[in-house]
């Protein structure tokens, strides 16, 4: 008989599968470091981290080429900090419900999972909304990506990060649909853990963006 994992009928215990070696039974499902997906997500995060590093390196390269007294260039004030700091608070707090969701499903709590995912989604969407609807229009009144290299870098770095938030939100929608279908339980939640890893990564990268784009010009 084959082992079935019909999504409506998930066994509540970890299935054990014989390998054929005498008496050997191994888990038929793994999440975390015994699964391939965990390492695949780490690989993706590594290569994404290098993408952001290259962008930030480009920022500082052009900044140092511009010389000490030309950043931001004449005519552009250093970035306003109030709104970015509020956005930061919102984005970073979005990691908390995602973390709670991740741990809720390890205890088997479907409700905690769904609420946590939803909370993370709403906070992330608020961050992205503030960036697109409030911050960008305000900034575009001062300078645009076409004004000079400073403007290009500002919008490329923050936009690239915003795009990652958008991808994270899309993945979140997918995971939430699966969560409402009851696809996850105490043992089967690879997708939740991998999504959480990605989400925390996107939040962590924001720390670098914040320091580079918003804080460093005021130094």
């Amino acid at each position: 008989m084959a082992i079935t994992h019909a999504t409506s009928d998930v066994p509540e215990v970890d299935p054990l599968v014989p390998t054929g070696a005498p008496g050997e039974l191994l888990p038929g499902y793994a999440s975390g470091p015994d699964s391939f997906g965990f390492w695949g997500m780490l690989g993706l995060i590594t290569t994404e981290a290098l993408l952001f590093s290259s962008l930030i390196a480009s920022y500082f390269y052009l900044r140092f080429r511009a010389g000490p007294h030309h950043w931001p260039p004449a005519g552009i004030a250093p970035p306003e900090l109030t709104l970015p700091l509020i956005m930061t608070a919102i984005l970073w707090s979005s990691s908390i419900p995602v973390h709670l969701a991740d741990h809720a499903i390890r205890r088997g709590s479907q409700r905690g999972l769904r609420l946590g995912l939803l909370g993370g989604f709403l906070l992330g969407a608020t961050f992205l909304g503030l960036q697109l609807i409030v911050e960008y229009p305000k900034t575009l009144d001062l300078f645009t990506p076409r004004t000079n290299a400073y403007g290009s870098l500002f919008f490329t770095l923050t936009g690239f990060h915003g795009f990652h938030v958008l991808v994270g939100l899309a993945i979140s929608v997918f995971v939430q649909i699966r969560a409402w279908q009851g696809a996850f339980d105490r043992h089967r939640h690879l997708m939740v853990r991998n999504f959480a890893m990605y989400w925390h990564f996107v939040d962590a990268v924001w720390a670098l963006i914040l320091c580079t784009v918003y804080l460093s010009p005021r130094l």
Partner: protein
Amino acid sequence: MATVHDATSSSSPSLEEMWGEPQGLGSWLSTVDHKRIGMKYLVTAMVFLVAGGVESLIMRAQLAQPNLHLISPEVYNQLFTMHGVTMMFLFATPVLSGFGNYLVPLMIGARDMAFPRLNAFGYWVFLASGIFLYSAFLTGHVPDAGWFNYVPLSGPRFAPGINIDFYALGLIFVAISTTAGAINFIVTILKMRAPGMSINRIPIFVWGELAMSFSIVFALPTLTVACVLLELERKFGFHFFDAGHGGDPLLWQHLFWIFGHPEVYIIILPALGMVSALIPTFTGRRMVGYIWIVIAEMATALIGFGVWTHHMFTTGLPQVAISFVALSSFFIAIPSGVQIFAWIATLIAGRPRLKTPMLFVLGFLLVFVIGGLSGVMFAAVPFDQQVHDSYFVIAHFHYVMVGGLLFPLFGALYYWLPKMTGRMMGEGLGKWSFWTMFAGFNVCFFPMHVMGILGQPRRTYTYQAGLGWTGPNLISTIGAFLLGLGIALTFWNWVWSRWHGAPAGNDPWGGDTLEWATTSPPPEYNFETIPTVASLEPTWDQPNLRDGAQPPEAGGRPLLGGHLTLSTSLLDGTPRAVVFMPHATLAPVIASLGLLVGFWGVVFGAWLLAGVGATVFAGGMIDWFWPRHQTQET
């Protein structure tokens, strides 16, 4: 519901039923079998080798005599650009992914790659990006600023058409494929090795693929960023490289070479791994200094990240930076030297058999050493400033690339094609091919050292008579065609062996790694039982492996409970879990098609078309991640 199942009961399906894929032509679209994907990579990459080769032959014909006008200067620019882009991104890296895809799971005793559908996706994206780049020929707007595409020549002011957009978007496109493949290799090699294959029993070729994959994950994003910035500057008027608006053209060179130099090692490391796989088999002796070779490979991959500015010695960088990079450029010769001495020691200590694969290895040794020595010459800054951007660079570069990649690769073809097709390649024809290639290569590229020292700049469309360049150029052109002929002989041999080759049997060469412990070609499930490995040369030390499946009493694991493979621990290879693998699916090919349409939409500024492409891509992704059958994901 019962959670434990009797693997030996007669009601459980056979391996054929569980691993068999649909047959017929359509199944080549949906297959997730690493062997068929590897074969597709291999054949497609060879098609691009022919394309890049034909481009170079046209250039050599144009340069055979002074003042020729076979093609226009514009076409010449397009040819040398596409030659470089094709050879680096559409031939060298994918062909190694092809060999890796086919061989890595077999060599580590696994039943597939870690992510079979990502594997299929990687192939289709590679093919789609190749089609995308070559579709530039249909529009008449072929990239023409060289494979390293320096700004401002490639910027919006001096390259207003869409030529360079094909370059920038095409490289972003192909980077998706390469990255996907690299992550897949890393997880496969770290997590899927047969029980007992601890980290000090990994075959050297597999180490090479691992080093290549790590280099890709760390280096390629920089190229992607460079291309994204360039495309933003070209299409949307951003400023990164435009000095008039606070940008700096040197930023492009830094980003490009931070990727570009490791790229050389990305290509060479697995090829050196191939050499290390062939030498023990054809000398009948264990590799001397296994651990030193592995350390050398890793050191090469690391130091490769510290030498990028040696491509920029003539740009007026600060003296300190130049000194640092010059030093690490000298250093990088050391690990290569370690490997070369280990190979020579193995050759001396063993009894070399001069079969065709071994001839290619010997040819490699000679050519690669010459290429390495001229590389050390470049690390000397004053010499570099003298021959910078001359034909001397082309000579060095091809000695390293053709020597370091093409010769090992062709040796590997003769060595492993019998495993893949079940038939031997012709030995006589193989030797003819080798000698033609070896002679053609040296006749073509050795004179370029002379041309470079005589001052002939690279990328020249034509030249005046009476500069002393005429003779070497003619000789070089003759050599190029001879090299082409030698390559064609091997291709003919490949086709010929398909029908007329002698049956190979499981192990025609007496090899020492696990791929020889199964049939040629291997069944869909690779091994009837996943073996337990007890040494670095398992098929030499464990005679029961050669007789077919290792029985469960001896450690073999049949894994009959489903479409299963084994997850093992990172360092010592103890079994940790069984993993359900996905079945054949069309999702990867659909998603890649969406990407192709999307990239076309962007290059022509047809945003509706781009939207259609993105939608198709998203559909493919949803189909991909929607769990069905018994896959691991959820």
